[in-house]
């Protein structure tokens, strides 16, 4: 039993929301979540808006501080780590975001965006970084000449590929993908999903895949966790959960998916 790459234990995250005139409300976005991702595994977290899935992803990426609980990456407590340890974790865990229109800096060229992780962690010489950028752009199916382009010259699908290239550049062990295909058209979704699948297969990456589309999840993940109002109500191997959902919410979600046949 190998040590999990990512281990979330008892994660709780509360926000203070100001509603109306000076009234403070505590919002419990995540109410005690346990989750593991093994090396090379694809784990999907599915939930509707307000389920806390995005907050979960942000806590894993250390963009938010948990109110309680721990998040361990390869044994390192992400939120209590010192600067050097955290930097090492950040290099091995890369994000892919949902909105292709805001996930790239509009003033940066594709090359610079893809290189960002390499520059931040000073990986390789400038020449090596440039070569890596070309390599990774090719991997995601974008021609090398795109390196000098800016985001507004690219389509949504192309931008999302650049985002994936940027995540792959530092050779991470884990991708945390927050609804990476939701904002894309069906045919483009298919391209990006195929790409992610290929990359995962070739590089042995682990992926934590946040989604709300059950059909995408069924197609893509090894294990799935269903989130509802900040808690995981059901989790297990994808085929098992989809064929024999134990929880009533999971059943309701599955029933609601518009059927194509």
């Amino acid at each position, binding site marked *: 039993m190998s040590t999990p790459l990512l281990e979330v234990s008892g994660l709780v995250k509360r926000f203070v929301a100001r509603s109306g005139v000076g009234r403070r409300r505590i919002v419990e976005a995540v109410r005690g979540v346990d989750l593991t991702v093994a090396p090379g595994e694809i784990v999907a977290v599915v939930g509707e808006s307000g389920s806390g899935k995005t907050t979960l992803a942000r806590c894993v990426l250390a963009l938010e501080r948990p109110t309680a609980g721990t998040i361990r990456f390869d044994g390192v407590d992400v939120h209590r780590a010192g600067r050097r340890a955290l930097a090492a974790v950040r290099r091995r865990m890369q994000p892919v975001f949902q909105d292709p229109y805001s996930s790239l800096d509009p003033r940066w060229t594709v090359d610079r965006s893809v290189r960002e992780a390499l520059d931040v962690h000073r990986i390789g010489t400038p020449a090596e970084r440039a070569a890596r950028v070309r390599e990774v752009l090719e991997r995601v199916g974008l021609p090398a000449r795109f390196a000098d382009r800016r985001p507004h010259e690219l389509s949504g699908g192309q931008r999302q590929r650049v985002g994936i290239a940027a995540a792959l550049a530092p050779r991470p062990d884990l991708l945390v993908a927050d609804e990476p295909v939701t904002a894309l058209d069906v045919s483009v979704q298919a391209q990006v999903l195929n790409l992610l699948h290929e990359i995962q297969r070739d590089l042995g990456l682990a992926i934590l895949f946040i989604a709300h589309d059950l059909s995408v999840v069924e197609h893509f993940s090894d294990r799935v966790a269903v989130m509802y109002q900040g808690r995981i109500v059901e989790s297990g191997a994808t085929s098992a959960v989809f064929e024999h959902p134990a929880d009533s919410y999971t059943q309701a979600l599955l029933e609601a998916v518009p059927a*194509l046949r």
Partner: protein
Amino acid sequence: MSALLSAEGLSVRYRTPAGPASVVDRVDLSIAPGEIFGLVGESGCGKTTFALAAMGLLPADAETSGRVVFDGRDLLALDDEELRRLRGDRISMIFQDPLTSLDPTFPVGAQIAEAILVHRDVTRAEARRRAIELLESVGIPDAASRYRDPPHRFSGGMRQRVVIAIALANEPALVLADEPTTALDVRVQAQILALLRRRCDEHGTAVLLVTHDLGVVAEVCDRVAVMYAGRVVETGPAAAVLSSPAHPYTKALLAALPARTRQRGALEVIAGEIPDLVTPPPGCRFAPRCPVAHERCSDVPAMTALGDGHHGACWLLDGGPARAAASPVEEDGS
């Protein structure tokens, strides 16, 4: 069987810095009274532009040609005043984002009541009563007290129900719904679609449902038209089109959906990108990406009848059913 709404050769061109873009090109379609008609396609295919054109909501610098006949009158030929009289009364529209469709400063009940008062000569009290009735009919619990609540007190799904209530306030003959459930969760989506279906069955309202989601089409639509790059490529009864797609684009679209494939990484991909609408390909606009394109595709294909109201615009269908069966791209995940 006379059509409620009939588009005849509708074309819309937008002026862009690069030249005029042919966003909708010679679209013919007709919607019968009481049916839910799906207009499906990916972003940029022109489906929203079509809906806006039908309501007379296109920007002033859009050039339109062709006709959109409703109730025997060409909507494109009407002036603003006549269109205003129709909108909200005989034809109403539902947009994707309920947050921006509702005025955040007014109670929802008042917004429904106003929609009624604009078109009907009734007292305020009567309008209020009807508004509460409508709120109940769209499934908002405790309608009488929620009448006073402003939009932000409702969840996304509830807001969309309010928007639907406003759209249905004056018993329109036709509702144009532009991606009404895209911004909503799966379960709420199912409820909203069921609500629309019920209204249509009970009141005989027709719906033009513009969507990119084939699942939605399968769920509620009676008939469907598939659009690509400004043209209708296939149309017919929803069940027929989805189970036996005739046009290569429809087939490819269905094959690209994850739900239909059991194996991983085997999603069929449509190579290439949508064409530039300023200089679209001559002939069939899907030809550059079509796996079975051939020389004849450089002429615009005509709509071929395939029986039972199912039509496809593809030269491969021209030889009749035998030709269609012989085409190689047959995706069937079983």
